[in-house]
């Protein structure tokens, strides 16, 4: 059970990192995630079932997610549709796209190859752990390389201070589109890997995934404060694993799984409110922390 939860944590961490690249770096919430995640699953599973190699199928899922991000990005920057609404429109539209891709609401991978088969000789769940860690290394090092290029720095600046970025000649609209494309590609990758681990894809598989992704980010930020960008990405992995262990513990203690979503949302809501609670209770002043001007 424990190793299974850790393995799941690694796969969900990919989602958390994808969400982080828009939510924390560009500073806006992108709801496309709830559509691009199951889209990645649907594309990967359909491709595998129709005889395509799992590696190629997973890559196809990534491209599908990037496409979804591109649509959201164009709606937001060129169409001037508010970003939350753009995400909702794409997320909702993707439901039909998934039905079109799979031709049914859900599709099983029973008796079909998976990415994890390459490590089939290992004990249970270790294949998932290895694929998870390998993918995380690829994603994190790829993102870090990008963030420390000239373009990546312009990307970070766009989220940090948009008017300054524009005054320095950074094309902030293109940066936002780029962010949404990359982010949703990563999110679809996570969807593809989780679907292969679960053994099926479902059109409704995206409900609540943003909460899971945000949970790993928030846990990472609460446990590890003041870290560099690279360290932050690694701590999201730890946050994601901790979150899965927390869920496991909750279930072990006999908590009714009907309420698991409510439980997750409540925990997240409390964490998100902490800055406000601090202010209200004047805890900042007590601990001597005051914003420097």
């Amino acid at each position, binding site marked *: 059970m424990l190793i299974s939860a850790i393995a799941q944590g690694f796969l969900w961490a990919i989602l958390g990192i994808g969400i982080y690249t828009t939510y924390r770096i560009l500073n806006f919430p992108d709801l496309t995630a709830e559509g691009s995640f199951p889209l990645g699953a649907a594309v990967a599973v359909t491709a595998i079932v129709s005889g395509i190699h799992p590696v190629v199928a997973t890559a196809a899922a990534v491209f599908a997610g990037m496409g979804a991000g591109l649509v959201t990005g164009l709606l937001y920057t060129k169409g001037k549709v508010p970003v939350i609404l753009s995400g909702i429109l794409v997320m909702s539209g993707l439901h039909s796209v998934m039905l079109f891709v799979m031709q049914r609401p859900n599709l099983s991978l029973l008796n079909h190859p998976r990415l994890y088969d390459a490590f089939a000789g290992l004990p249970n769940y270790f294949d998932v752990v290895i694929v998870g860690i390998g993918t995380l290394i690829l994603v994190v090092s790829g993102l870090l*390389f*990008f963030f*420390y*290029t*000239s*373009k*990546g*720095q*312009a990307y*970070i*600046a766009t989220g*940090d*201070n948009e*008017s*300054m*970025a*524009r*005054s*320095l*000649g*950074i*094309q*902030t609209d293109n940066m936002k589109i780029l962010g949404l494309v990359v982010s949703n590609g990563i999110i679809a990758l996570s969807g593809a890997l989780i679907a292969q681990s679960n053994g099926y894809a479902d059109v409704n598989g995206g409900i609540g995934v943003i909460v899971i992704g945000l949970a790993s980010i928030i846990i990472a930020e609460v446990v590890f404060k003041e870290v560099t960008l690279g360290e932050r990405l690694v701590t999201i992995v730890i946050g994601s694993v901790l979150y899965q262990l927390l869920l496991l513990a909750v279930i072990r203690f006999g908590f009714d799984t009907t309420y698991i979503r409510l439980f997750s949302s409540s925990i997240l809501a409390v964490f998100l409110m902490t800055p406000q609670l601090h202010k209200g209770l004047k805890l900042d002043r007590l601990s001597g922390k005051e914003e*420097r*001007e």
Partner: protein
Amino acid sequence: MNGLLELKQVTKIIQNESDMNNTILDHVDLTIREGDFITVLGGNGAGKSTLFNSITGSQPVTSGRIAFNGKPVTNWPEEKRARFIGRVFQDPKMGTAPRMTVEENLLLALKRGQQRHFFPRRLKENREDFKQLCASVGNGLDNHLDTPTGHLSGGQRQSLSLLMTTLTQPDLLLLDEHTAALDPKTSKRLMTLTNQMIQQKELTCLMITHRMEDALTYGNRLILMENGKVKLDLNQEEKDKLTLEDLFVLFEKEEALETV
């Protein structure tokens, strides 16, 4: 004479909540020549900031034409105009990226208006230059190269903004009351630094200020804006003759008009 930047009949009209047309800039003609250091005075709502926004392109104009070195740029977006325009904002928070360090901000500014590629950013190669540059300001900025700018004082942030803006020698420097948010001492020091840089780098500059002494002390040309128009445009000679009292009189007249 051909100017560096020419504004012809630039007008900006915005609609307020009750759909009333509000003319912020009213057929402004202005020619900025190379080497000009123009101080811009005007009461609240005179259109100073809108004039700046029209020049940078952060706000589209309703009508009129803007040309840079004879080339029409009226429809260029702000990002494209950044190639030749540098701007320091009034609010210290506006000019720097708070989560990025001082040296990262400088590196961003070094590439003003250039294409940014997927190549490593080359921070180390520039670190020594940045350190010397920051040391030249003399307010301890050089000890904070790897501090996120959000942790700096307002004065440090504004001097960093100024360094960032002048790093690439912009053809036109716009200062939008850039010392107004600082305490008097810091404000004075930043103004001295600003003047030094403008003289040293022979920059063409437009500076909005609320401090009439500064408007008289600095620059070689002074314009006074009122109700969206350039009411006065004084050259060096006329400006030298102007006294603080004259300016106060001009302003009182303006305020009297506003209250009518």
